[in-house]
C-alpha cells in the first residue's frame, strides 16, 4: 500500500514537471545562436530580412536588440576600496569602531584589476561565446604595473560587493580565478542591487565595491567611506564600460530601430504608450533607464512618479532575467545590459 | 496509616471531595463505593499524591515514593513489550525479568509477555498495569476500579491475585469499585461516598447488608446479596 502511494506521488510530480518542460520553446544548438547576434551588431538600424521573415521564432524569442552603442547608454564601472576609518554607524545610528576591513586585500585586487593581465581578460570576455567583447576598457584608465603581494592569513579573504548585473554577466567568473590562483586570495562576491551593494559597504560588510552608478559612487566618496589607494589619483577607479541595449519586440511598433538616439526611441515609446518593462528596483540599470525618458514625463526612481503611466509602463521590481521574460511574453520594450540579454537569448529565453 | 483532616478538593465551582475527617488504618482493606462522580477517583488520586488538596491536610506514613502503588482508571501502555512495561516498575533492581514474569503470571498475562503493550485490549492493559503495581512490595496499594475492563472470566483471578498480594506484603489496600460484590470479597471496611462527601463508613458486612444512609441504600438498590 505504501509503495503504491509512493509510486503515484512520484508519477504525479514527474508528470507535472514534464508538462512544465513541454511548455517551453525548444532550444536550438549553440552554434546557430552566434549568427543572429553578430548580424544585429553590424546592422543597427535596418530590419534584417531573416528576422522580419520569421517574426516569432528567432531563437524562440519575440524580442531582440533594437538599439545599442548610444553614448547615453554607456555604463561605466568603477572599483572603490572601502575606508577602514570611515564613519561607520550601527543600525541605531551610533558610531561604531573596530570594524574589520581588509584594505591590503582590497588593494591587491584593485591593483590586479588595473593590471594588463586583467585588461586582457576583460577585453576578451564574451568574444568566444557571443562573437564580441561584452566589456570595453576605458581610455585613460589607471594602470598598475607593480608587484602584487601574495595572500597572507590576515589578508586572504577579500569581500567584494558588486551589482547583480556584473555578476549575471559572468565576467567575475572569468576574471577572478586567475587572480585567486596566482596570489592565493579568496574573493567572496556578494551581488545585490546597486543601492544594497553600496549599503553593504557602509555596514562594514565589504572591502571593495565594483559598481556602475556615478552619482551613487560620488556620494559614497563624499560620505567618507572610500579610501584613495597608493598610486592612484582618485578613490573611484573607473576602468571599464559597456552599453545597455534597448530590447524590444521583433515587430518594433514604436520604430525604435530607426530612432536617432536612445532618448528619441524612448520618447517614441512614451508617445505611443507601448509596453515597457522597468527594473523598478533602483539598480544601476533602473537609474540609467529613468534618465532616458523625456523630462516632461517626470519619471524618476520614485514609484509615485510612474503611477500615471501604469497602463504601459511596468515597474517590475525584479532582476534583469525576469524583466526580459516579461518583455518577451508581452512583446514589450526593456532596457537591458547586453550580457544578460545574450545569456537570455542563448538559453532560448525561457525554460528549457 | 493515613489521616485526612478537613480535606477539600474543588474543580472550579464543583466540590469534588469534602471530607472533614477520615482515618485509614494500616493493614486494612478499604473499599470506596459510590455512583459516578462521587469522588472515588479524586480520593484515590489524593491519597497517591497525584493531586493536592485545596484545603485541609493529608497525613500519610507511606512517604517514600515506591512504597505507594497507584493504579489509575485508564492505565497507560508504554511503547515496549508487556514484560518490559512491568520491568519499568522494577527499575534499578536485580532480577527484573524473572520478577516481572512472576507478576504477569499472577494476573494471567504471562502468555503475552513479549507482545507489544500498545496492541493490547482494554482489559489486558489493565491487567498489565496491575502487574506493574504488584511487581514489588508496597506499603500502600491504591487501585482505581481495578477490574472495570477485565473480562468476567478473568475477574476472579485478578481478585485472587490482589488478595494474595495483600496477605503476602501486609500492605494497606484502598480501592474503588462499581461492584458491591467485589467490595464484599476484598474489603474489611467500606466507605460509601455521596457527592464528594462521606455517606457512610463502616465494616463491610454492615454497610453492604444493612446500610444506614439513604444514599448508600440508593446505590445498593439493585444489588442482591
Amino acid at each position, binding site marked *: 500500500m*505504501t509503495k503504491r502511494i*509512493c509510486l503515484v506521488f*512520484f508519477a504525479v*510530480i514527474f508528470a507535472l*514537471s*514534464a508538462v512544465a*518542460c513541454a511548455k517551453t520553446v*525548444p*532550444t536550438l544548438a549553440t552554434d546557430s545562436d552566434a549568427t543572429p547576434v553578430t548580424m544585429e551588431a553590424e546592422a543597427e538600424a535596418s530590419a534584417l530580412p531573416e528576422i522580419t521573415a520569421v517574426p516569432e521564432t528567432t531563437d524562440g524569442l519575440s524580442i531582440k536588440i533594437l538599439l545599442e552603442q548610444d553614448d547615453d547608454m554607456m555604463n561605466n564601472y568603477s572599483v572603490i576600496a572601502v575606508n577602514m576609518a570611515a564613519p561607520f*554607524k*550601527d*543600525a541605531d545610528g551610533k558610531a*561604531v569602531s573596530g*570594524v*574589520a*576591513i581588509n584594505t591590503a586585500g582590497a588593494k591587491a585586487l584593485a591593483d590586479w584589476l588595473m593590471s594588463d593581465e586583467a585588461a586582457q581578460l576583460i577585453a576578451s570576455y564574451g568574444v568566444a561565446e557571443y562573437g564580441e567583447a561584452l566589456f570595453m576598457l576605458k581610455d585613460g584608465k589607471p594602470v598598475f604595473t607593480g608587484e602584487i603581494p601574495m595572500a597572507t592569513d590576515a589578508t586572504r579573504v577579500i*569581500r567584494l560587493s558588486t551589482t*547583480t548585473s556584473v*555578476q*549575471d554577466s559572468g565576467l567575475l*567568473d572569468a576574471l577572478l580565478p586567475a587572480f585567486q590562483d596566482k596570489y592565493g586570495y579568496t574573493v*567572496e562576491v*556578494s*551581488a545585490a542591487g546597486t543601492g544594497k551593494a553600496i549599503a553593504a559597504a557602509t*555596514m*562594514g*560588510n*565589504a572591502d571593495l565595491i565594483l559598481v556602475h552608478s556615478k552619482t551613487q559612487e560620488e556620494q559614497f566618496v563624499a560620505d567618507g567611506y572610500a579610501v584613495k589607494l597608493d598610486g592612484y589619483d582618485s578613490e573611484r577607479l573607473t576602468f571599464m564600460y559597456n552599453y545597455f541595449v534597448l530590447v524590444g519586440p521583433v515587430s518594433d511598433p514604436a520604430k525604435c530601430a530607426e530612432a536617432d538616439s536612445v532618448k528619441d526611441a524612448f520618447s517614441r515609446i512614451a508617445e505611443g504608450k507601448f509596453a515597457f518593462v522597468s527594473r523598478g528596483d533602483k539598480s544601476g540599470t533602473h537609474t540609467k533607464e529613468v534618465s532616458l525618458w523625456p523630462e516632461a514625463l517626470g519619471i524618476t526612481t520614485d514609484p509615485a512618479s510612474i503611477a500615471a503611466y501604469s497602463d504601459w509602463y511596468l515597474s517590475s521590481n525584479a*532582476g*534583469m*532575467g*525576469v524583466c*526580459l521574460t516579461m518583455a518577451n511574453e508581452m512583446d514589450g520594450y526593456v532596457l537591458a545590459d547586453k550580457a*544578460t540579454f545574450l*545569456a537570455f537569448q542563448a*538559453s532560448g*529565453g*525561457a*525554460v*528549457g | 496509616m493515613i489521616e485526612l483532616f478537613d480535606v477539600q478538593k474543588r474543580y472550579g465551582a464543583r466540590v469534588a471531595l469534602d471530607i472533614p475527617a477520615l482515618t485509614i488504618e494500616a493493614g486494612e482493606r478499604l473499599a470506596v463505593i459510590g455512583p459516578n462522580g462521587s469522588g472515588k477517583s479524586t480520593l484515590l488520586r489524593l491519597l*497517591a499524591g*497525584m493531586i493536592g488538596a485545596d484545603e485541609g491536610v493529608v497525613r500519610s506514613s507511606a512517604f517514600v*515514593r*515506591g512504597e*505507594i*502503588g*497507584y493504579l*489509575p482508571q485508564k*492505565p*497507560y501502555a*508504554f*511503547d515496549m513489550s508487556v514484560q518490559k512495561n512491568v520491568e*519499568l*516498575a522494577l*527499575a534499578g533492581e536485580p532480577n527484573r525479568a524473572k520478577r516481572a514474569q512472576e507478576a504477569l503470571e499472577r494476573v494471567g498475562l504471562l502468555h503475552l509477555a513479549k507482545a*507489544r503493550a500498545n496492541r493490547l485490549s482494554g482489559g489486558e492493559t489493565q491487567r498489565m*498495569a496491575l502487574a*506493574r*503495581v504488584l*511487581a514489588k512490595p508496597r506499603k500502600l496499594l491504591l487501585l482505581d476500579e481495578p477490574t472495570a475492563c477485565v473480562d468476567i472470566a478473568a475477574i476472579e483471578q485478578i481478585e485472587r491475585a490482589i488478595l494474595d498480594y495483600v496477605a503476602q506484603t501486609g500492605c494497606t489496600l484502598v480501592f474503588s469499585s462499581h461492584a458491591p460484590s467485589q467490595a464484599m470479597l476484598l474489603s474489611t471496611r467500606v466507605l460509601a461516598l455521596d457527592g464528594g462527601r462521606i455517606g457512610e463508613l463502616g465494616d463491610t458486612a454492615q454497610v453492604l447488608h444493612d446500610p444506614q444512609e439513604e444514599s448508600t441504600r440508593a446505590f445498593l438498590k439493585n444489588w442482591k446479596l
Partner: protein
Amino acid sequence: MNGAFARALALLLAGDPLLTSILRVTLIMTFCSSMTALLLGAPYGVLLASARFPGRKALILINRTLTGLPPVVCGLFCYLQFSGTGPLRGLHLLFTVAGMVIAQVLLITPIIAGSMETAITHIVEPMRESARGMGLSRGRTFLLTLNESKYALFSSYLLGFGRAMAEVGAVSMVGGAIAYKTNVMTTAIMMYTNMGNFSYALALGMLLLLISLIVNILAHVLQRSVGV
C-alpha cells in the same frame, strides 16, 4: 523535449563543481540546522507539555507566535547583528554557513518545539499517572516521556529538515549566496532565475523536490518498519 531534469542529472553525474558544491553546502547546512534545532527544541517542547509551572501557557503562546516568524525578518535581524557594524561582528558570522545555521536554528527551533508539544500534550497526564503510580522518579518519568515521543520526534525532525532546506529569506541575507561557500539550492535558484537562466534554476528546483521526496519516503518507510 530535452527536459531540465535530464540536464540537471547530466550535470550532476558529470560532477559539475558548481552544482556539487551547491548540493554539498545545502546538505551540510540543512543537517546542521535541523539537528541543532531538534536538540534544542525537542526537550523544550516535551518540557512545555509535561511540566507544570507558572507562565507555562504564556510560553506556549510565545512559542506558537515564534513559529510564524517570517524568515526574512529573522534574516534581517541576524544580518544586523553579524554585520560589519553590528554588535556581534567580532564573531565573523556574516557570509558563513555557521551564520546561516544560526539564523535557521532561530526559525526552526520553535517549530520543532511546537510540534512536539502538540503531539504529546494529550498523553502526558495518563503517562505521568501510570509512571508515578508505579513508583518511578521524576527523572525516569521524563526519560520515559521522551521515549514515548519517538514518533513525534521523527515527524518534528522531518518538519524542521524540510523547512531548513526550502528556506531562502534568512539564508540569502545572512549567507550572501557566495559561490562555493554559502550558495545553497534555494539561493542558487533565485540567482539563476534573476539571471534569466531558467533551465538551470528549474533543474535545481527539481533536485530539491527529489531530495525532499526521498527524505519523506525514507521517514515513512522507517516509521512503518518500526510499527506504529
